[in-house]
């Protein structure tokens, strides 16, 4: 090898740019889910209340629908989607079971402090078929978390509440420091949601789950402050090559 080749190699290796760590994490999750069998579907960030709330069994009186939690646009005509679930609603309306969809992207909540941002990213999945059970949900969540955190990770399911799933669960993993960390929310799709999407809930049932991309990225990369992701600081971003 000539000297100049060496210099070129040196230069080239250091000259690469990088994708944003949140997009890298999001793409990693989508790839993981595609390998299991989930197909990505797409939808808008500016949504109607119908798709963002009503179709998902989030009643008018639910706190999430208050002006202090959700961004409304253009005289309350629309909302900035508060989750990527409406994408799944749109896709379910256009499909017949069995279906296995993921939706991913930016979501918005009216929040801005040290641990909450007005915009963050979610990856959500839904699977609807005959005889889908909570036991299936458990297996799937274990599969996802083993892929992400290794086969030895200790996993805990806790009952929780989401209007669009019943039963609902939050899932924790045990950290190295012995503390349980909340990782994702999931549940059996509420039959009301299936019926809203013209799916016969006597015949079909479903499971759904949602992950916060920033949360996963913070854990996997060891980033402590969520705001670091959005300073566009090259000293920070260049580390994720």
């Amino acid at each position, binding site marked *: 090898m000539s000297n100049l080749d060496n210099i070129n190699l040196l230069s080239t290796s250091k000259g690469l740019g990088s994708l944003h760590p949140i997009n890298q994490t999001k793409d990693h999750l989508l790839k993981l889910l595609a390998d299991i069998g989930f197909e990505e579907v797409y939808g808008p960030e500016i949504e109607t209340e119908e798709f963002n709330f009503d179709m998902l069994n989030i009643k*008018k009186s639910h*706190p999430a629908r*208050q002006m202090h939690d959700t961004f409304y646009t253009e005289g309350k005509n629309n909302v900035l989607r508060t989750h990527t679930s409406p994408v799944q609603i749109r896709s379910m309306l256009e499909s017949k079971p069995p279906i296995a969809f993921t939706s991913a992207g930016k979501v918005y909540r009216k929040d801005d402090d040290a641990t909450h941002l007005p915009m963050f990213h979610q990856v959500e999945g839904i699977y609807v078929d005959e005889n889908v059970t909570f036991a299936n949900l458990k297996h799937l969540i274990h599969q996802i978390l083993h892929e992400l955190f290794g086969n030895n990770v200790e996993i805990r399911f806790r009952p929780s509440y989401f209007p669009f799933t019943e039963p609902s669960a939050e899932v924790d993993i045990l950290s190295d420091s012995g503390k349980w960390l909340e990782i994702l929310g999931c549940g059996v799709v509420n039959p009301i949601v299936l019926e809203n999407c013209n799916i016969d809930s006597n015949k079909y049932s479903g499971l759904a789950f949602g992950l916060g991309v920033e949360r996963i990225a913070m854990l996997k990369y060891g980033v402590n402050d969520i705001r670091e992701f959005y300073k566009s600081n090259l000293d920070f971003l260049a580390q994720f090559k």
Partner: protein
Amino acid sequence: MKINYQDLINFLSEKPSKEDLSQKLFQLGHEHEISGDIFDMELTPNRGDCLSLIGLARDLAVFFGKSNSIDLFNGDIEPLEINFENFSPKDCPKISFLEIEIEDSKVEYKPYLENYFNTIGGNKANLFTDISNYISYELGQPTHCFDAESIKAKLTFENRECNSTFKTLLNSEVTLKDRNCVFSIDNEIISLAGVMGGASTACSNETKKVLVECAYFNPESIIGKSIKYNLVSDAAHKFERGVDIASHEMVLRRFIKVIQDHAKIKSIKLKSFTEGHKQSPAIPIDVDKINKILGTSLDSNEYFSHLKGLGFEISNTIKAPSYRHDIKTNNDLAEEIARVIGYNNIKSVPIKLNKITNDSNDGHVAKLESLLVDNGFTEVINFPFTSKKKKESINIDNPLDSNRSSFRTSLKDSLIDNLLYNERRQKESIKLFEISDIYTKDIEIKQQKKLGLIVSGRLANNHNDFSKKLDDQYLNNLLVTDLREDVFEITEIHRNSLDTKKKDKIYYVEISLEDIPKSYFLNLRANKKAMNFVAYKPVSEYPSSTRDFSFSIDDLSKVNDVIAMLDEVSDELIKDSFIFDFYKNDKTKIVKLGFRCIFQSNLNTLSDIEVNGKVQEILDPILKIEGVCIPGM
């Protein structure tokens, strides 16, 4: 909500340890943190029924049994004659008024009441209000105490349009607007129902005759009021989540009993107004359905036993207790069963799906990303909010602040901000891009996926490109392959309108992905890199210090060694290093090699002494190589 472990176990027949209690609370879905004897509960919004000692004990009874330890007044109560009218029974289908007169309100608190205020209750107010707060902690039903002597005319409850100022019992002034559920006397508001009472009718330490209001308010009628008026209210928190409409008799008899424990009662009078309330539906018994939801194989006996343990009535159908507003369907019952069994004890069963073989990423996006990353661009993600309002902007009705009141219509301003931010952080070669959906409005909302990229400064930090500048020719070479040149419009952004003293030119490209012909992508490839979660290192906020070295190497056989050593230069304080110049004089056979090293600490601004020490460590081994020197050093 804080709960004292010692209080809670009084309601259970078994007396579990804190650890056992904690484990079962988690199993039931009641998150909490423990500090000493205090359990700080974080309950899900559907479980308003658990916002009390008795509520949590009802849930825990399925594991530990329940103890009938609530001491109630069981004497006769006279009927109360009260001039009251409920104009909005839809918002308040049941309300009871209890009037109690005592001989002396200056009393010493019994240990259980004293202990409540010492551990959980906070500041005391007066006997009646203190007992009201204690009862709410015990039984979950908020009550409000009016000084009975201050209610001198007809009392009304209504949901009405308001535009008046109201002074709360905590003496804060609140201007009520729009519709609110209120109690009034002679049209003057004396209480914001379900949230907070007013100062004009509040009890004091002198009060001897109290009118206790015990109501069921529909959650929808109360939701959002405490936040709207910035009133911290435990009562509102409970009413918003739904209280037990069937509990009034028990709650008020308990209230009397606690008063009786503290003072001599002269008279007790009670009146209830019930306007009917829709009961929770009876759910057909279908254990197969429950097994189908959960993937379990329960028999009927187990099913019934679990439900009975949670207070459900089982006859021909299943009926939820009056406090369980959240139970309506078999899926709700399935969750109850799963909580009792324990989510973690339900077996896992795999689903059968086929791997998706086509690329889950949008192929065009992945190809553009690869092109840019391979050429040294860094991707950024920006918030879409801006203060710049355009005709086509989508505006936020309730922005966080006026600087974030509209959706951006272009990526340009965000990327300029990103560039200037990094210039201020001493970055000399900046290449950034963002791919994001942009939303604008015309007749309908228009969604476009756009690519924006911005460059300025040195072409790159390497010996070939260090002295060259990023410019339109660079972007043209990078982006325009076999295409018409006008697809990517490269524009210069002039610095005169920007807050910067830098002189390097700034070039910008923005394009909607749908405007790039498909043929363009035929020549591009998406790199599929395996994910590598590298451990992140905190970014320093201290200034960096740069040192350049010009090596002269007169033995060509040593060039490789020098390059290898420079490549291995590494230290906690070295943020970046690269060869910025390489020149071989063919006549003299001497190689000149320029090397830049950038130092930065995460702990402090580095002194010259610290930097020079590190420089010495780098240079010493290299300068020991025969034929290598730094002229002038």
